[in-house]
């Protein structure tokens, strides 16, 4: 796969919506251990709205699709994850602009900018036990989508022993260690959905 178009982005976000519908319970479970037990329903609500918006507006370029998705997340999720995941997609979309197709490299670079924007907005660095721990290594591995998925999943798993320094898990101090960060877990789902969408695209030729 060398080109990324609006269809691929739509497939990515639809895949994500389905994965979140399946995994919402687990994410909320993770969030009840070190947070406030809403992450699963937050993400699910947000991506259900994203899917509906994409179906309604049928954006013609990957950039527009991402901006629409990001804006929808900001407008429907709330909490910490709404502005953060929303910024990830919106920023990446803005970087891509109006082009109907972009190269995998351009796409990867845009997502990297999105991830930087997330880290800036949240003031979080790798190791703070947030979604950034899954997003940064994944962004670095792009445009190898399969490698990005592995990196995100490893990054999420690596949050388990960490003590949180950002978000509400940080209030637990030492007790935040020993649990996977819910936002990192959902970020890994997002990246895995991207790898699946890319693979489907590749297999379709």
């Amino acid at each position, binding site marked *: 796969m060398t080109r990324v178009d609006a269809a691929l982005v739509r497939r990515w976000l639809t895949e994500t919506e389905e994965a979140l519908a399946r995994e919402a319970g687990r994410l909320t479970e993770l969030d009840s251990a*070190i947070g406030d037990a*809403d992450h699963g329903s937050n993400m699910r609500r947000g991506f259900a709205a994203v899917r509906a918006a994409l179906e309604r507006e049928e954006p013609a370029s990957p950039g527009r699709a991402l901006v629409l998705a990001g804006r929808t997340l900001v407008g429907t999720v*709330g909490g910490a994850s709404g502005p953060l995941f929303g910024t990830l997609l919106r920023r990446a979309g803005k970087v891509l602009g109006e082009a109907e197709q972009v190269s995998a490299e351009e796409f990867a670079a845009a997502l990297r900018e999105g991830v930087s924007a997330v880290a800036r907005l949240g003031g979080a660095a790798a190791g703070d036990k947030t979604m950034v721990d899954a997003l940064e290594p994944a962004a670095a591995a792009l445009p190898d989508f399969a490698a990005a998925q592995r990196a995100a999943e490893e990054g999420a798993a690596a949050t388990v022993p960490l003590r949180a320094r950002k978000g509400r898990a*940080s*209030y637990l101090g030492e007790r935040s260690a020993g649990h996977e960060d819910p936002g990192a877990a959902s970020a890994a789902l997002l990246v895995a959905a991207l790898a699946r969408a890319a693979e489907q695209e590749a297999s379709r030729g």
Partner: protein
Amino acid sequence: MLINGPERVVEDALRGMAAAHPELSVDVENRLIVRRDAPVTGKVGLVSGGGSGHEPLHGGFVGPGMLDAACAGEVFTSPVPDQMTRAAAAVDAGEGVLFLVKNYTGDVLNFGMAAEEAEEEGRRVAQVLIEDDVAVTDSLYTAGRRGTGGTLFAEKLAGAAAEEGAPLERVADVAKRAAESSRSFGVALSACATPARGGPTFDLPPDQLELGIGIHGEPGRERRPMMSAAEIADVCVDALAKDLRPSGPVMVLVNGMGGTPLLELYGFGAEVRRALDERRVAVARMLVGPYVTSLDMAGCSVTLCQADEEMLRLWDAPVATPGLRWGR
């Protein structure tokens, strides 16, 4: 749970607020509760909001003498920027709008985005952050202190100042002073059950308690064997006094987390009063009740707000909201 389904909880509650409070204007679709007479000419608009599940905070504090509007998020989830910009538009009489924001990443980010948008729309917007929870100690390695019971003091005092016609800078200053003069500490005797989860957010045996909890059903900083009301009051007051070092009289909020009966809460209040007396902290005002709750969590929090003459005057000023009401 007494609900129609987890996804309808907030909407249904707003419909109920609309039915019970004709004196408020409730926008169920956009999840806003607004003073019916907003925007009030010559008055700064006060907007707050946050995740639902803390009632009467914030929607129950809308009315003359307190908030002009409150934005209701999903349970324990901060509202979205759209709600806050709409609220700002509804209450801005040209004197500007103050956002009162509890210090949680979600609230800070969403209110921050809303403030930008509102400013782009040409409004004057000030923001004050409430971060009063002393259980969160080391702010270098956390998202800062949580906003909890101190919110009530900030909303009440700033509301009274706005009602008096104070300009935006002064209303913001009053809110800031209230927030900075407040310290809170909370204790859980049970977890709470969120509608989305359908059950308790953590396991807490009846012979144990959690010290240093917030208001989102999260576990606290430390688990301990059950203590008496007197012991709990000592722990709370010690933690607060150490941090606040009050030099004059304080206002005290003895707050129920939702599931603790008022009978127990008043008994706890007696112990808080004793603990303050023993430490020679003068109590100027004392409020006991479930004001900043965490759904059905059993437990309590104590907030001390060091008060000067002006703050006491603003506290005593009339307020007429569903959750707090006194004076004319």
